[in-house]
């Protein structure tokens, strides 16, 4: 098999090929490393590639398999992750200058991927301290979109999105506090799951806003998202916010029939000022769901504008608290935009922050009562505008910053506030050839229904099979 064919496999296909001894882990790792080294100069997606360590790990994986030891469902599959997950004794940059020089422990999500047999070969570019939705980074350089390197990748999991899209890794952990998995999934044309708050442990992951942070993968297919989430989800004593309920078999859920499921199309908020090409792609995706037997109905939404504002205050206040000491003692280590946003958070009144948290349970009950009493999932755009260039959105910490960032996260942030799971799936392309994503929001802990719908959609379409030329 040629290298391009190997890197073009999905995560599930690569794992199967290794498991069935059709490919060695070393061969898959060599092809992945070659691809990573080829695309990195164009996309600036890696912060570090651990070539020798990765090849050693692949050799060990092959030895294990040769003596009959299959580590797990991801045995031998190469992955790189957003550089905010601890690996004991190894630096984590957090996309800037304030990460630890030596991580004190290994993140639970990485331990679980290790246990499932995945092989980490590097760490990925990201927005500085995961506090930026565009992919700009003034420390490591801006990350570039595999479909057009002049355009945004989205963030904060920018390297995760563009490296997976470019076939330089089979899956990548991202994190989603206000849209940071779904946005790069949309802009880069991948799948990505923001799980329910509490579904995946954040232990050993850089905290940004502990009330809203979630950990999840970006992948090329929905099946791969289900596979990776199944490996990392579940209770963890190291993160008391994790939920004790049993993790469903997400791969089995992919086979569930979608005929009869009811999909909601929001009447308010999500389509305000939406670009016609994006609206058309979303409408076409609904037509695909109808052909698959799902029912589509229009639904009224509660006050998302207020929830978006409340979420914005929680992120602002918590991020400012996490980095308050850094702002006081080493402000020069933050880029102007991140520093300005952190300072902004220090002006949020305590009562407003607490009211934002108090409103959250009320909002979730209202959302579930008014929406999920009528539909199984809510279907919506991820972003309402066409993918801009890196240059035209390079506003730094200047006066245009708040409006631009608010526009980018407007449709994703409420999902974090509610804490519900949200799956981003590519729904088409614009005339300019840039990917368009849709997001499916579900009931708390019902990732399985989202996977069933997303997988059925990819079975009926081929957007996810198209590869960028970069």
């Amino acid at each position, binding site marked *: 098999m040629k290298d391009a064919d190997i890197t073009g496999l999905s995560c599930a296909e690569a794992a199967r090929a290794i498991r069935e001894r059709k490919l060695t882990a070393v061969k898959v790792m060599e092809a992945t490393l070659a691809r990573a080294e080829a695309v990195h100069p164009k996309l600036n997606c890696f912060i570090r590639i651990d070539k020798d360590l990765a090849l050693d790990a692949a050799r060990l994986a092959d030895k294990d398999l040769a003596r009959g030891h299959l580590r797990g469902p991801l045995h031998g599959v190469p992955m790189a992750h957003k550089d905010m997950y601890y690996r004991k004794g190894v630096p984590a940059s957090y996309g800037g200058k304030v990460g630890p020089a030596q991580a004190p422990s290994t993140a639970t999500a990485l331990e679980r991927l290790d246990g499932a047999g995945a092989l980490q070969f590097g760490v990925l570019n990201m927005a500085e301290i995961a506090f930026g939705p565009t992919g700009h980074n003034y420390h490591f350089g801006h990350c570039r979109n595999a479909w057009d390197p002049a355009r945004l990748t989205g963030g904060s999991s920018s390297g995760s999105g563009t490296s997976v899209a470019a076939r330089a890794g089979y899956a990548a952990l991202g994190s989603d506090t206000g849209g940071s998995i779904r946005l790069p999934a949309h802009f880069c044309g991948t799948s990505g799951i923001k799980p329910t708050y509490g579904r995946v442990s954040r232990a050993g992951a850089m905290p940004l806003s502990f009330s809203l942070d979630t950990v999840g993968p970006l992948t090329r297919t929905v099946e791969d998202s289900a596979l990776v989430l199944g490996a990392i989800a579940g209770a963890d004593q190291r993160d008391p916010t994790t939920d004790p309920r049993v993790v469903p078999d997400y791969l089995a859920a992919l086979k569930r029939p979608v005929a009869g499921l009811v999909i909601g199309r929001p009447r308010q908020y999500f389509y305000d000022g939406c670009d016609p090409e994006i609206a058309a792609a979303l409408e076409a995706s609904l037509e695909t769901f109808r052909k698959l037997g799902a029912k589509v109905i229009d639904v009224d939404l509660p006050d998302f*504008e207020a929830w978006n504002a409340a979420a914005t205050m929680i992120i602002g206040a918590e991020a400012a608290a996490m980095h308050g000491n850094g702002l006081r003692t080493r*402000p020069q280590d933050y880029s102007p935009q991140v520093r300005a946003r952190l300072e902004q958070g220090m002006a949020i009144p305590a009562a407003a922050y607490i009211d934002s948290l108090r409103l959250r349970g009320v909002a979730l009950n209202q959302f579930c009562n008014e929406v999920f009493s009528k539909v199984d999932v809510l279907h919506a755009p991820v972003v309402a505008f066409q993918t801009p260039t890196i240059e035209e959105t390079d506003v730094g910490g200047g006066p245009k910053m708040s409006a631009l960032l608010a526009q980018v996260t407007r449709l994703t942030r409420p999902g974090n506030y509610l804490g519900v799971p949200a799956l981003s799936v590519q729904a088409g392309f614009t005339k300019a050839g840039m990917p368009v994503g849709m997001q499916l929001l579900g*009931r708390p802990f019902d990732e399985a229904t989202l996977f069933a719908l997303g997988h059925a959609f990819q079975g009926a379409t081929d957007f996810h099979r198209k590869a960028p030329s970069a």
Partner: protein
Amino acid sequence: MSQSAITPEAAAALLAAQGVSAPEGADGYARFVTLQLGNSAKAFARLAFEEEPSGYTGALKANAR
């Protein structure tokens, strides 16, 4: 700026009191906070006296599939 808005001077003083060096963007910070408070004020006004942040975890479990 309306009378009900947070002033740049107030935002600057808040930050300075927390030990953060005199912010250049106090005007923007004041506008940002005023906007968010305004957008959420009606929702906050409807909050029951007894509501507390821990209610969220209960809502998450109560609405789980």
